[in-house]
């Protein structure tokens, strides 16, 4: 039986397409309940990473407890679990949703339903959540709330007739949102007297308290001093602190069924608190663990190397620390003839990859060289063994390969109908297979394509945005593997193979790709003391060749008189530029060259 307290708890997430106002609505809810004082309040208050603020995105999930005094005079505990919006972070979203009974679906009244609105909505439905649609940005002149309601009903199939019409930015309709949360989202089930079952939906590492597990109590009660057990590993720990998020961590004595909070128990290893695991009472254990969720599977891989080889231990240390709070990040050591010691890292997608790179560079002050991202290819060898290839360099000799498979994703694109032509052209050019096209309304279309993942990971999103003036939205999910004719394309600079530039490409496109990469490299490699031949090769066959001419003129035929400092500064600046270069044999390569070669559009 649910307690009175339990009946006044609501656990919910906010889901939305990127930029539809999720973080702003979270800000308003926090502000309105007086959870934070005006002084503590700032924009995107839950996104405390610099990177999140700059990019206006949420990367990490966060939780906050709000106390709201309802019109019935009672105080309700509303646990808001903030989630990322980008497709790369679906995994984070899914974890958070598992801790909730409901989700607020924010839809921008000027844009209507977008690809990630749908994707996030389906995720929420998968978790049997009550979805409460909210229509945002009604203060804008181009807002069309009626049309947006119709789309929510027609496309998603949710009743939007009494969806709150709000402007999170200016604070219109926020009370309606609270009302909808309390009236529509069910209170949590579960019995505080049962044996403990707590779901870990996130964890982070604190250098003082050890691993802090973010938990949702499903059954039973978690108390201070309790001996807890991780149900997947059987490891036991003594609870040192239990608390709630306000959003700062505030200790409490216990957490009961239905509540959301955190637990610290001197856990030193993040692997001991696997996200999705169930925590129980070691002295009175639950018979069963909760259904977890599938672990995050990295889909995109690239090599990350320190610019300065001596920084390898620092890079290792930084990756380990990042991994503490980012279970989806994987890495293992690798060596490259061109770049020395580094790591092959796995990511959920390209944004995840960029975010990790940026965090390494900023938070750990590292200069990195990143190699071309790759997907996991399945290589069936003639001896019957299967190789999962994450680094193109490791592709066996073609004579040892029976066949290869590459990952395929099912792609959803929502776009104004004017752009269907250019989008179809783009998808076809990327080996996309058309599945279907549906008119969402008179002027908006939803397209489905099956596409090789390696066609999407480089610059597909940018190409899509530029062809549709930014109007199209994209979502994709892995749908399986498919046999493909693939070859390894190598790049030679000054006659030396640069392993870090090797990539797997469809054989039908190898020539064109080889040529475009050679041309691109010619653009990005600065002229040097000597002439540099650039060659693209498949096996021993050269398929494209360009030349970076030797430096012709770099001379100050001018008299600066006694102003030698000025001359020196010019040379020092030139030297700084050189320092950033990565030396491959005798050739100096700008670090961005490794990514630049992929931008073929």
């Amino acid at each position, binding site marked *: 039986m649910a307690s009175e307290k339990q009946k006044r708890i609501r656990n919910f997430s906010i889901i939305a397409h990127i930029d539809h106002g999720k973080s702003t609505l979270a800000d308003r809810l926090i502000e309105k309940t007086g959870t934070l004082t005006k002084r503590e309040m700032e924009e995107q208050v839950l996104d405390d990473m610099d990177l999140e603020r700059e990019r206006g995105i949420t990367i990490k999930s966060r939780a906050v407890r709000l106390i709201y005094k309802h019109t019935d005079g009672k105080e309700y505990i509303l646990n808001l679990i903030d989630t990322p919006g980008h497709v790369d972070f679906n995994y984070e979203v899914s974890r958070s949703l598992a801790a909730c009974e409901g989700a607020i679906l924010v839809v921008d009244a000027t844009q209507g339903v977008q690809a990630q609105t749908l994707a996030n909505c389906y995720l929420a439905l998968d978790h049997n959540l009550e979805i409460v649609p909210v229509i945002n940005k009604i203060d804008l002149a181009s807002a069309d709330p009626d049309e947006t309601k119709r789309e929510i009903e027609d496309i998603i199939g949710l009743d939007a007739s009494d969806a709150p019409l709000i402007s999170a930015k200016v604070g219109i309709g926020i009370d309606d949102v609270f009302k909808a949360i309390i009236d529509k989202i069910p209170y949590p089930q579960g019995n505080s007297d049962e044996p403990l079952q707590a779901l870990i939906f996130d964890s982070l590492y604190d250098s003082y308290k050890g691993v802090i597990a973010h938990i949702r109590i499903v059954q039973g009660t978690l108390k201070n001093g309790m001996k807890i057990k991780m149900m997947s590993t059987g490891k036991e720990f003594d609870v040192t602190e239990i608390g709630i998020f306000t959003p700062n961590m505030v200790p409490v004595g216990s957490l009961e069924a239905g509540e959301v909070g955190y637990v610290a128990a001197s856990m030193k290893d993040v692997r001991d608190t696997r996200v999705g695991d169930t925590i129980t009472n070691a002295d009175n254990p639950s018979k069963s663990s909760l259904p977890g969720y599938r672990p995050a599977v990295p889909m995109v891989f690239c090599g990350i190397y320190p610019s300065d080889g001596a920084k390898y231990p620092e890079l290792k240390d930084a990756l380990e620390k990042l991994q503490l709070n980012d279970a989806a990040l994987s890495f293992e050591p690798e060596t490259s003839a061109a770049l020395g010691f580094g790591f092959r890292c796995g990511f959920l997608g390209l944004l995840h990859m960029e975010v990790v790179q940026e965090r390494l560079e900023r938070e750990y002050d590292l200069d990195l060289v990143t190699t071309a991202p790759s997907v996991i290819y399945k290589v069936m060898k003639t001896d019957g063994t299967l190789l999962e290839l994450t680094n193109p360099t490791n592709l066996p000799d073609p004579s040892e390969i029976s066949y290869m498979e590459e990952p395929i994703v099912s792609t959803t694109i929502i776009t104004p109908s004017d752009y269907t032509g250019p989008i179809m052209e783009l998808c076809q050019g990327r080996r996309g297979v058309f599945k279907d096209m549906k008119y969402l309304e008179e002027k908006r279309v939803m397209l489905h394509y099956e596409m090789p993942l390696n066609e999407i990971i480089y610059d597909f999103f940018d190409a899509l945005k530029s062809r549709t003036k930014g109007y199209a939205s994209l979502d994709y999910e892995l749908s399986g593997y498919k046999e493909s004719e693939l070859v390894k394309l190598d790049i030679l600079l000054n006659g030396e193979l640069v392993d870090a530039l090797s990539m797997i490409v469809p054989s039908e496109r190898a020539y064109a790709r080889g040529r475009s990469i050679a041309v691109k490299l010619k653009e990005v490699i600065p002229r040097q003391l000597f002439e540099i031949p650039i060659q693209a090769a498949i096996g021993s066959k050269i398929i494209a060749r360009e030349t970076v001419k030797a430096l*012709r*003129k770099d001379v100050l035929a001018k008299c600066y008189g*006694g102003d030698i400092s000025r001359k020196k500064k010019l040379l020092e600046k030139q030297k700084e530029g050189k320092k950033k270069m990565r030396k491959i044999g005798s050739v100096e390569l700008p670090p961005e060259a490794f990514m630049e070669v992929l931008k073929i559009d």
Partner: protein
Amino acid sequence: MEKLGLYIHIPFCKSKCFYCDFNSYSGKDYLQERYVDSLIAELKFREPIIEKSGISTIYIGGGTPTYLNNIAFKKLFSYLKRYYRSGVEYSCEANPGTLNKEKLSILKENGVNRLSIGLQSWNDDILKRLGRIHNVYDFIENYDSARKIGFDNINVDIMFSIQGQTMSDFENTLDNVCNMNPEHISCYGLIIEDGTLFGERYKNGELKEVDEDTDRAMYYTAVEKLRKAGYLRYEISNFAKSNYECRHNIIYWDTRHYLGIGAGAHSYIGDVRFSNVTAPEKYIRLIENYKLPVADEEHLTTDDMMSEFMFMGLRMTKGVQFSDFKNRFGLDMENVYGKQIEKLQKYGLVKVNGNSLSLTDRGIDISNAVFVEFIR
């Protein structure tokens, strides 16, 4: 204590040339007399160091020293006469549009023994496009007057890589200047600098850089023609008949000591480089308030000094001497720069000849890329 080169800066011009990014101004003529007084005051302040070291060269540069009005001009040069001794090279820069017999005579009477005349081109259209205030005729007239008055050491500045300049324009300039038979010719490549009119036009896409092949072709045409006419290249851009090399500029390239007086002037004494404030008004105000006009000061480390020794010294055809390096720094150049020298030799950019290391022609073409190797 080694003798100093003395540099004096005159920041005034009748009008600013379109390519010029030196510390010079038009429209500030009203400051001229106070400025000259300030120069004299600064010289008096620096008297102890001048006394102690002695002076081996004097160089009056600008701006346009010959643009000073008669009163200021006379006052400056009659004051400076006290630094002139026999054997001192005493140069003054001159613009053909601001010279006349009277000024030439004042210079001569006060000990100036070397004139440096900015001609730039033997083509009146090009001169106009550069924003020069004179024509070729002004140059010929003043050059002849200077010879008549007795100047027997004259430099002429010319320029290549000017937008719209053809190879034959440039050859014509070279031929005509050689015919005038000056003792020294400086031959500079035009550089489009930020903060100039050309820099603006470049940013707006109205002006393009002369392509590298043309630039190099012009440079080597100059080297060849001048060599045939008896002028030897002794520095990347400087050519002279034997024994007429500019000793003042060689002080810079040898990284020896000099004292700069005036707005924006640079000095290098001991292990300190310092420079004065650039704005003439500010310079005057500081001096008039008995304050030092120094804006910047840099104490050089041994690494700095070695870097400068290399990248300044290598500008000269004779290059840098291994023995000089050892004497100066107590270290062997091979030990400090062995790897760099070996690499640059491999690419044919420098050559070793007995005691000296110097640039090859190809090394001159990309000398900045060579110099970068020596920055520590």
